[in-house]
């Protein structure tokens, strides 16, 4: 079968071999747990507990603060110690609920239900209550995605199992170890629509996952496993929709406008947990990897746990690593401190012995055009970066700078090592801020 792909993209070193064969290990948290109120796109959640309250694992501690927002649950039992600003992996500060873990892991009673007994509204309510958001990093509330304006026009629900970011293997392990539940999660999502088809998209560098999921969906008429060419950013929403269905969307459209809904593997798994087992989103898989850790691996961790503990779980630092990244090497955030909590969108802790980027000197643009060839949005990054450096907002918008997905491919391929993504991102932030002012 032919492999699906898109035009553009780059081929960074994959690095998956470090952790892809390491089974998921569950980590028990130590110390205080921190739950930032913004772990999703949209309004921050509103705390429903106060300092001194005793909470159980799985208890709602903050509820959605708007339509595009999500509930937050405690992942351990204990006492609310404070509600105060804490540093996030992204570098900013966010008001967070801090819970002192009592180590007992007393849980609220979860109400398990049978799939057959649930109506569509009940399914949506259970997903909403569980506080599920897109776990690939964007953090878009899942129930909002599953409640499009015209549900009749949804033709495809795509499970994003590409994991095109180098190094990260959390989705891969989830696919291998929990394939039944992932398929079940997809079936639940499909049941919300009259004629939606399921597509499980997996890059061809994960043949075992492809084989397994093909077996598991053999008897499912409306679920297909599609093999994607291994290329970054294959798992980017726009690139993925195009590769899987041939439809294309731009920055002003939602996937639903092309009849598609895209979910990350861990999100789909969380849908299963919420709908069938009645469990809220309190845990996720995090890959701890890179040449700066002794034993790279995949860990099932409690949300709110400290990143330092992740590093220890992977055998601690190997030597004196220079760079710590939350997320993948292409779009992740470099962290100045490890004293930050695991949140719903934390897919990995990547540790590099050497900070290559800090040693790179950029030189003159030689107009090789590689940035444009690698751009999944078919832009001219060199031109955009030039316009950005001149602060030419009008020109930047005319050359479709706002269509950029900030994937980092242009900076990656640039032989002159110019900080194209950085310049373009900064300009986009300025323009977005100016638009909000108006």
């Amino acid at each position, binding site marked *: 079968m032919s492999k699906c792909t898109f035009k553009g993209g780059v081929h960074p070193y994959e690095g998956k071999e470090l952790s892809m064969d390491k089974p998921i290990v569950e980590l028990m948290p130590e110390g205080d747990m921190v739950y930032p109120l913004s772990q999703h796109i949209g309004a921050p959640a509103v705390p429903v507990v106060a300092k001194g309250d005793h909470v159980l694992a799985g208890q709602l501690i903050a509820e959605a603060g708007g339509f595009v927002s999500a509930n937050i649950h405690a992942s351990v039992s204990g006492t609310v110690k404070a509600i105060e600003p804490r540093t996030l992996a992204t570098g900013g500060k966010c008001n967070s609920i801090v819970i002192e873990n009592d180590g007992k892991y007393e849980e609220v009673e979860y109400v398990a239900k049978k799939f057959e007994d649930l109506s569509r509204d009940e399914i949506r309510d259970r997903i909403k209550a569980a506080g599920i958001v897109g776990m690939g990093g964007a953090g878009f509330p899942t129930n909002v995605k599953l409640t499009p304006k015209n549900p009749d026009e949804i033709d495809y629900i795509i499970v994003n199992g590409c994991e095109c970011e180098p190094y990260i293997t959390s989705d891969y392990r989830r696919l291998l170890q929990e394939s039944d539940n992932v398929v079940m999660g997809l079936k639940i999502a499909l049941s919300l629509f009259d004629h939606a088809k399921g597509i499980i998209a997996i890059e061809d560098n994960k043949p075992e996952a492809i084989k397994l999921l093909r077996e598991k969906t053999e008897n499912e008429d409306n679920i297909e496993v599609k093999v994607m060419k291994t290329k970054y950013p294959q798992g980017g929403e726009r690139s993925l929709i195009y590769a899987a269905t041939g439809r294309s969307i731009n920055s002003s459209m939602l996937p639903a406008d092309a009849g598609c809904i895209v979910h990350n593997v861990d999100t789909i798994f969380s849908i299963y947990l919420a709908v069938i087992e009645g469990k809220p989103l309190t845990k996720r898989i995090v890959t701890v990897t890179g040449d700066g850790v002794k034993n790279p691996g995949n860990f099932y961790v409690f949300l709110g746990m400290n990143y330092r503990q992740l590093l220890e779980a992977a055998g601690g630092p190997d030597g004196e690593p220079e760079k710590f*990244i939350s997320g993948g090497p292409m*779009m992740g955030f470099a962290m100045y401190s490890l004293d930050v909590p695991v949140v719903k969108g934390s897919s990995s802790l990547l540790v590099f012995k050497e900070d290559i980027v800090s040693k790179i000197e950029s030189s003159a*643009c*030689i107009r090789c055009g*590689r940035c444009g060839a690698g751009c999944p949005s*078919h832009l001219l990054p060199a031109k955009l970066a030039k316009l950005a450096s001149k602060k030419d907002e009008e020109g930047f918008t005319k050359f479709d700078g706002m269509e950029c997905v900030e994937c980092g491919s242009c900076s*990656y391929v640039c032989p002159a090592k110019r900080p194209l993504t950085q310049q373009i991102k900064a300009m986009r932030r300025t323009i977005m801020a100016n638009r909000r002012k108006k």
Partner: protein
Amino acid sequence: MSELFNVSANPHVRSKDTTQTIMRDVLIALAPAAIFGIYNFGLDALLRIVIGIVTCVAAEAIYQYFMHKKVTVGDLSAAVTGLLIAMNVPPTLNVGYEILGCLFGIIIVKQLFGGLGQNFMNPALAARCFLLIAFTSPMTTFMYDGVSSATPLAVLKPGAEPGEATSLLTLFIGSHSGVIGETSAICLIIGACYLLIRKVISIKIPATYIISFALLIFFFAPGHAFDAEYMLKEVCGGGLLLGAFFMATDYVTSPITPMGKIVFGIFLGFLTFIFRMFGGSAEGVSYAIIFSNCLVPLIEKYTVPKSFGKKKVKAAPAK
């Protein structure tokens, strides 16, 4: 571990390719044709190649040093220019003239416009055109095996005095007169394949250039229309292959847009046809490329690619 770790904007990894590795690949790709030039013309050719490279690198370094700029000869772009200039002069050219050409290319065309990436003309070709205009006779007099001989292309030119026609095989292998680096079609093609495999150049410009030129020759060459052998000789003879693969594809002076590359290539083919068939000299590649270099900003303006998912094609932005 230190208290605060390094931060930087994404991405946190970079490809291994650098400007230097790209220029090194171009040097490697030019090597077969240059070595054949030395085999074909002897030590004269070797001397001119060494002088070309040394002069260009030294000129760039000295200029940058005295202008208090960062010396960037390590990126090898000056070496590429030097080699290309040497490959574009006859093996008998006065060495002093060659040095003058190198200085013109590096100092005036490249550095005065802001250095690598800013020059609007290919420095090597600008140097060749400068030499062609300034020292026309030494630049167009060719010796082969110790006797003065016309280039195969000059013999092919419409209206030329009949001379001994060179066989297609000789043209392909390259044992005939001409400038140092242009004679061997096979060596140039080997180098071009290397660049294509290494993805240093895209096939768009050379393919559209050569094909459009060949088609124009085939259909419209005065006195030789529908003459396939004549067409192949025009393609293999002269500087077309050297120009199409190694100079028209110069990043700095060719369009960055995919569509622009195609327009550029077709325009090159058209100009080369006009210059070779109707111009004053047998050769037309250099002038065609230099001329088209000047049109690159215009071509780029009208060939901005459609961004992904864009529903309506907007008019090209006026800038």
